[in-house]
């Protein structure tokens, strides 16, 4: 039988960027998939080799513009560990708070766009409404909405954070998550589009290197937050689901948002009890000699494990920077799990993996 080759992307309404999927269709059933990436390559790794550490720091947010704080943290952490810079405790708490807020914003955007892929219009606007609050808060504190440049080597830029507003925002989001669930979670149409669709078994998830919520939805208990030292004093649960289908990935993310709210509240509680008004600004130019060595730092980003490899040979610029991002591995697995599904399920599977293309291509 003749097969039709359908070129999904790079410009397609629901590939969230410029992913190209070369699908071979037999009617509406997909027989083979070839994901092709590289349309958004900005050579952020190579760029590091010609820029000093401070010059590269603003670039780091641009690896994934939806969760910039995680990448800033990974890079700052690598540099600090290499150069033995001590980070004060309050700065760690602020970092955790901002990272979790960023996770909220990222998951909210994912939820909205995922439902838009499935054809529901309103939830997208509702989630963007809450995300707008978070992003406006970031703008108020850091100066920009997506490219923050707020974490610096040895702490955060300044400690003038508006804790009351953050508390109001997370309380609001916590209430609104219930509202989203009213619209979506039990909806039979949503269930028919996500339940038992795109099942990733435990072994397959491990084989393809999935991390983060996608892995946890397959029933593997792996959350790098539990071994990160900055999360040591904070209590949170690791959300786990066993089915590994699109629905469990949705559920994991929904409950992860609630956990994020819980973590943020603990951070706010800690920060409200200490005096941050006398903390000096952290704006100084590092003229120190860079230590030699190499380091691989990690952080649990919304889209999976993010690692930053940094090698220094004592010069002002890094010798090599390498990013390991979660989305790249989520894109790879498409080749395996999209085989044999219907064309309309492509979007529900691809959307549920929460791929952000700039992160894939760097």
């Amino acid at each position: 039988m003749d097969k039709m080759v359908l070129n999904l992307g790079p410009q397609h309404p629901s590939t969230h960027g410029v992913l190209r999927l070369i699908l071979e269709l037999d009617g509406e059933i997909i027989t083979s998939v070839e994901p092709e990436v590289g349309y958004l390559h900005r050579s952020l790794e190579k760029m590091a080799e010609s820029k000093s550490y401070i010059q590269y720091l603003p670039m780091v947010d641009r690896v994934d513009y939806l969760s910039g704080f995680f990448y800033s943290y990974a890079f700052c952490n690598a540099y600090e560990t290499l150069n033995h810079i001590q980070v004060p405790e309050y700065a760690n708490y602020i970092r955790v708070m901002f990272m979790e807020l960023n996770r909220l914003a990222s998951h909210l955007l994912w939820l909205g766009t995922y439902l838009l892929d499935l054809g529901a219009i309103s939830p997208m606007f509702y989630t963007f409404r809450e995300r707008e609050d978070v992003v406006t808060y970031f703008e108020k504190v850091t100066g920009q909405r997506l490219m923050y440049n707020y974490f610096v080597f040895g702490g955060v830029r300044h400690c003038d954070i508006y804790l009351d507003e953050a508390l109001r925002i997370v309380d609001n989001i916590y209430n609104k998550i219930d509202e989203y669930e009213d619209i979506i979670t039990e909806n039979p149409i949503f269930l028919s589009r996500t339940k038992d669709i795109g099942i990733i078994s435990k072994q397959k998830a491990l084989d393809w290197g999935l991390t983060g919520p996608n892995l946890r939805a397959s029933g593997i208990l792996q959350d790098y937050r539990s071994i990160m030292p900055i999360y040591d004093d904070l209590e949170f649960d690791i959300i786990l689901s066993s089915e590994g289908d699109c629905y469990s990935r949705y559920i994991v993310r929904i409950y992860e948002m609630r956990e994020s709210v819980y973590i943020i509240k603990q951070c706010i509680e800690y920060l409200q009890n200490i005096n941050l008004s006398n903390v000096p600004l952290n704006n100084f130019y590092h003229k120190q000699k860079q230590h030699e060595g190499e380091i691989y730092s990690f952080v649990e980003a919304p889209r999976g494990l993010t690692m930053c490899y940094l090698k220094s040979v004592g010069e002002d610029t890094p010798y090599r920077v390498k990013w390991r991002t979660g989305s790249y591995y989520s894109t790879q697995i498409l080749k395996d799990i999209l085989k044999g599904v219907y064309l309309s399920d492509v979007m529900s599977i691809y959307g549920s993996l929460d791929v952000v293309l700039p992160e894939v291509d760097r």
Partner: protein
Amino acid sequence: MVKKIYLSIKAILKGHFTVLKHLFRNSVTLEYPEVHPFLNHYFRGRHVLEGCRGCGLCKRVCPSDAIMIEKNDNNYLNKYVIDYSKCIFCGNCMFYCPTHSMKMSNDYELAKTNKSQLLTDIYYKGV
């Protein structure tokens, strides 16, 4: 089976009434040209330069090579040009300025009709 159908219809109706609830809420639209968003003083907009000595540290920390500094014969600052087509508003020039002479204002409407107009000399020449 009957229970399943009952639950599905209940869920659909619940979703519908949750959406209907929003019909009676105020809109959150910001009507931009008439209403401007609130911007904190940390906002990074157009650069403002006052009392610069021309040490050139900002040029060194700028990630995108957007700053051009021109000095005259007496080693005084003559021109301080920022190329807004290159600037990414990371704020490094402001953060690492040793004399705190670089500030970033809340002005964010930077669109120009011509690329050459984006090359802006922001050095304030006093009387």
